[in-house]
């Protein structure tokens, strides 16, 4: 049986095209952000990294997993009980990436749901371990770290192939119903500080004042002493000056002194000399 030349040629071209198509289906390009898991007869055979990869037709199939991408799960806000049976509202955001693409593809139907559940449980347990004051003041970082560690342990035990990148505490606050009471504590802290500062201000005014006063007292005492000394100098100088004359001739010296005194009295005071026996009437002291 011989085919007409045209049909023969068409057949050759078709066979060639079919061959090319089969070859093309063997080649796969793996994106740098991906890892391809190759299954042969349904079982995992190998993984392919970025670049050109080969896959047998029919007997092999493949699945691409994005591994570099950081995935994000936002957990709904939860009202949690603390160790001292207070309530706090907690809202977390989880970021994770794929550490093991084979586990990630095979083990769990919905790895994101597993991540959400395990982080939720870890947060619930960690908050139950901590007191409300610790949580709301310094506990944020501790909560993040503890939740991340606990959830990662669970996810590892469950062979999820997931690596947690970060747990962000979007909000951590007392419930709205009691938020005023918590704010009042903050303002009381502020009041405490204000009161203390006012007292400090008082102390830092009183002490310099009194130091100034003390210095003044000291200066006054010194100048008083100097005056006393100076007067003694003057008095004694006068005494010494008069002494030789006095010793030589007492009456003359006394007369001279009396003269000086009268001169001084005359300068300063008004003198009235009355006959002996005159009654004196002093003006009323008032």
């Amino acid at each position, binding site marked *: 049986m011989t085919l007409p030349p045209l049909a023969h040629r068409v057949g050759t071209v078709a066979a060639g095209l079919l061959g090319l198509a089969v070859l093309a289906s063997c080649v796969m390009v793996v994106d740098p952000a991906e890892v391809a898991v190759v*299954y042969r007869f*349904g*079982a995992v055979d190998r993984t392919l990294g970025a670049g050109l990869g080969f896959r047998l037709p029919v007997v092999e199939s493949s699945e691409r997993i994005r591994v570099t991408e950081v995935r994000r799960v936002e957990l709904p806000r*939860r009202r949690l009980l603390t160790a001292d*049976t207070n*309530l706090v509202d907690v809202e977390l955001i989880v970021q994770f990436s794929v550490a093991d693409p084979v586990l990630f593809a*095979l*083990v*769990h*139907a*919905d790895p994101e749901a*597993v991540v959400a559940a395990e982080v*939720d*449980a*870890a947060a*619930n*347990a960690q908050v*139950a*371990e901590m007191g*409300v004051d610790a949580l709301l003041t310094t506990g944020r970082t501790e909560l993040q770290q503890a939740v991340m560690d*606990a959830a990662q*342990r669970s996810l590892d035990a*469950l062979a999820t192939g997931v690596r947690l990148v970060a747990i962000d505490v979007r909000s951590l606050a007392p419930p709205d119903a*009691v938020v005023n009471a918590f704010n*009042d*504590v903050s*303002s*009381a802290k502020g*009041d*405490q500080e204000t009161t*203390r500062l006012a007292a400090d201000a008082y102390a830092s005014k*009183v*002490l310099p004042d009194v130091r100034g006063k003390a*210095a003044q*007292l*000291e200066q*006054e*005492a010194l100048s008083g*002493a100097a005056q*006393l*000394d100076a007067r*003694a100098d003057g*008095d004694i100088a006068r*005494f*010494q000056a008069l*002494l030789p004359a*006095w*010793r030589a001739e007492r*009456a003359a010296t006394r007369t001279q002194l*009396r003269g000086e*005194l009268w001169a*001084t*009295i005359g300068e*300063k*005071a*008004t003198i*009235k*000399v*009355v006959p002996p026996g005159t009654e*004196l009437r002093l003006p009323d002291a008032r």
Partner: protein
Amino acid sequence: MANVRALALGALPLALLAASVFTLDAREVAVVTSFGAPVRTLLEPGLYMRAPWPLHEVVRCDARARVLEVAPTELLTSDKKNLVVEAFAIWRVADPQKFLEAAGGVAAAEAQLGDLVTSRVAAAIGKVELQDVLAVDSTTGDLLPASVRTDVATTAAERFGVEVLDVRLRHVGLPLQNEQSIYERMRAERLRIANAYRSEGEEQATTIRARADREAAEILAKAEREAAFVTAKAAETAALRYAEAYRADPALYELLGALDAYERTLGEDTVLVLPSDGGFFEALDRGPE
């Protein structure tokens, strides 16, 4: 025609082969049944042989683990506190034959597993007080004791061929009506703390003021003492010098002292009224001759 017959003869074994071979994916497990009766359980992925339909049938199950979210349940602790507890379980089909017989499918299995988890969690929480519910079990890192997980896992495996990988509480909360009493207590406690801060502030302020006042009084007292000392010292020195002068000549000393007294008595508006025979200047007139 001969060609067609040859083709048909060749295709028949191929079709038979195609109907007798199947693959099991890594994410599946399967049971091969013959007229409904299980023949083989397949747990590993790969290429398998079977008798063609209708002799054998392959029933596949998803072998991946699933998260079962158990609906929130209100439970009582042993100290009669109400709690709203939300648990979850992670499970997968381990024995497809038992799973298909006992549960039939995912929905039915999850309903049964949910009931099992709820009852075991309720039993565990009913045994302890609220404070102990909030205590983390060190072996599981969770609020549930490890026994709950092992109990659920054993029972689920026996009853419906399911492997339970994890059971945890994702939320322990209070019923809405009980939150109010917690809020009351929280408010009272905050008020106490706020008052404590304020009175601590007053206390510190009073202490600081009192300390400052005491220091001020001390500084002043010290200064006064020193001033008095300086004055006394000066007075002492002066007195010694005066005494020395006195010893040199008591009469002159007294005379000068009296003169001094007279001078110091005088002011601008002093009026001296003297009887003509008076003894005011006696000191001057009298004297040792």
